[in-house]
């Protein structure tokens, strides 16, 4: 029970962090048909910027400024990179963002070195919020949830109650028609790209110190974010939200369970001596594979994703 509750909380924290990354990616993907391979790089930059700003000023300044900086960088990348590459087709665009993700890693290594940097949770947010039996729940995780929920509410209100939000929603299904109605769709693309990368930056700010800030952090999370977008369904923010939580919670539970098929068999009274390797793997060992299996299953059985508006 105690394990379940803490795992659930951890899973939700991780899931919300995934959503902060996948919401931007899914908006960019469904509106502009740009598969942005460099999306997780903006997450990494957010963490490094936050590390730098935290050192010079404070964590709170970083929380505000780092996502902003990342967003501005995103806008520049869209305006002067992706838009240029777009003229040469989707492959050029894909290669451009691919190259960009490598560039980001090289630059980060050049400036901050190959080892992890000492980006820490600020002292005001260190400590334990509550202890359940023997497990303690840190303040910082609650803070991460609070920031995520705040961001979620902000994104939802922006998309639902503002005119630009409405235009963005419409452009998710028919950007050409939105433009023919007189809306400057290229400018809105830049805005969405900036907003999406800023969210990735924010995830970096609050995730970089909870996890680890190092040059490999983009590659660690990038593939999972793609899985979330595919599982959730293209063009669907709700889908990305559900998939983020699903994968976040599932993976957290599996990591915590040292339990295999053989163990299960024993429990119900079967004693298997020569089980195949697969049956002997514990759920923990299986956890990293789970998102990709889920993606393959979705692509086979429901190619439009859980709530997708169009085919993948």
């Amino acid at each position: 029970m105690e394990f379940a509750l803490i795992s659930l909380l951890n899973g939700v924290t991780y899931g919300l962090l995934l959503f902060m990354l996948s919401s931007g990616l899914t908006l960019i993907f469904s509106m502009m048909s740009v598969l942005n391979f460099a999306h997780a790089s903006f997450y990494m930059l957010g963490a490094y910027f936050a590390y730098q700003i935290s050192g010079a000023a404070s964590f709170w300044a970083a929380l505000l400024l780092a996502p902003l900086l990342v967003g501005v960088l995103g806008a520049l990348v869209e305006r002067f990179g992706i838009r240029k590459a777009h003229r040469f087709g989707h492959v050029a665009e894909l290669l451009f963002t691919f190259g960009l993700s490598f560039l980001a890693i090289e630059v980060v290594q050049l400036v901050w070195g190959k080892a992890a940097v000492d980006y820490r949770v600020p002292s005001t947010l260190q400590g334990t919020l509550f202890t359940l039996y023997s497990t303690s729940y840190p303040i910082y995780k609650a803070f991460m949830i609070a920031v995520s929920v705040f961001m979620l509410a902000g994104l939802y209100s922006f998309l639902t109650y503002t005119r630009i939000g409405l235009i963005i929603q419409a452009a998710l299904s028919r950007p050409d028609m939105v433009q023919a109605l007189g809306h400057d769709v290229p400018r809105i693309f830049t805005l969405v790209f900036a907003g999406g990368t800023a969210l990735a930056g924010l995830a970096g700010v609050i995730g970089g110190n909870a996890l680890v800030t190092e040059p490999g952090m983009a590659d660690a999370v990038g593939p999972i974010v793609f899985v979330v977008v595919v599982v959730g369904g293209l063009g669907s923010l709700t889908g990305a939200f559900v998939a983020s939580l699903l994968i976040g919670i599932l993976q957290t539970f599996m990591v915590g369970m040292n339990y295999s098929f053989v163990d299960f068999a024993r429990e119900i009274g079967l004693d298997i001596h020569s089980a195949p390797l697969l049956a002997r793997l514990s759920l923990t060992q299986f956890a990293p594979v789970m998102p990709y299996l889920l993606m393959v299953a979705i692509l086979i059985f429901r190619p439009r994703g859980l709530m997708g508006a169009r085919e993948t």
Partner: protein
Amino acid sequence: MLEVKDLHAFYGKSHVLQGVSLSVGRGEIVALLGRNGAGRSTTVKAIMGLVSAQGSVRFKNEEILGLKAHEVARKGIGYVPEDRAIFPDLTVRQNLVLGIKDPRKRGRWSVEEVFSLFPLLAERAETAGGVLSGGEQQMLTLCRTMMGDPDLVLIDEPTEGLAPKAVEQVGEFLTAVKKRGISALLVEQKLSISLQISERLYLMGHGKIVFQGTPGDLRANEGVRKEWLEV
């Protein structure tokens, strides 16, 4: 008002528009007829800046060819595509609101006016656009475009696939457009409603204008009709 001269367009290597010239005067409703594949939709898209083309398109004595679609729209041209392109997840009201280019300016049409003209849409104001019937969706697209207060509308096959009752409604809509002095280029396949409402017409075949005149001229010319229109 609109002056198209020697318009050429290509899809890859196929030469889809081969020197199309046509004009629409102020307050005039002009039909563009032709069989499927004649190049009517491409003509309209080229005017709108949705496909690239060579030649000249002048609107209010200003060259607009080469502008992006939203710039063309802001010059005062409205576009109603043949696939209707409503925003399925948004409500009828939200669809209409998206037609407004500049919320600070008041155009000739307001949401309330559209609702009073077409009570069917008013009843479904808060319904998602995607669940409307074909005829209702067509009315919604037409009205959405009018919310942008265009001086000229390009309407691509508004009656295609509609029940007779819905066709009648489209006819009423076009009458309302005409009464307000708005010009229209109306793409149709058959002679039906376009003939009752339009003053002049062009007939397209294989990417060229093959006939132009009044509806009466076309009615009198069985040879042209047989060759370019009827199956």
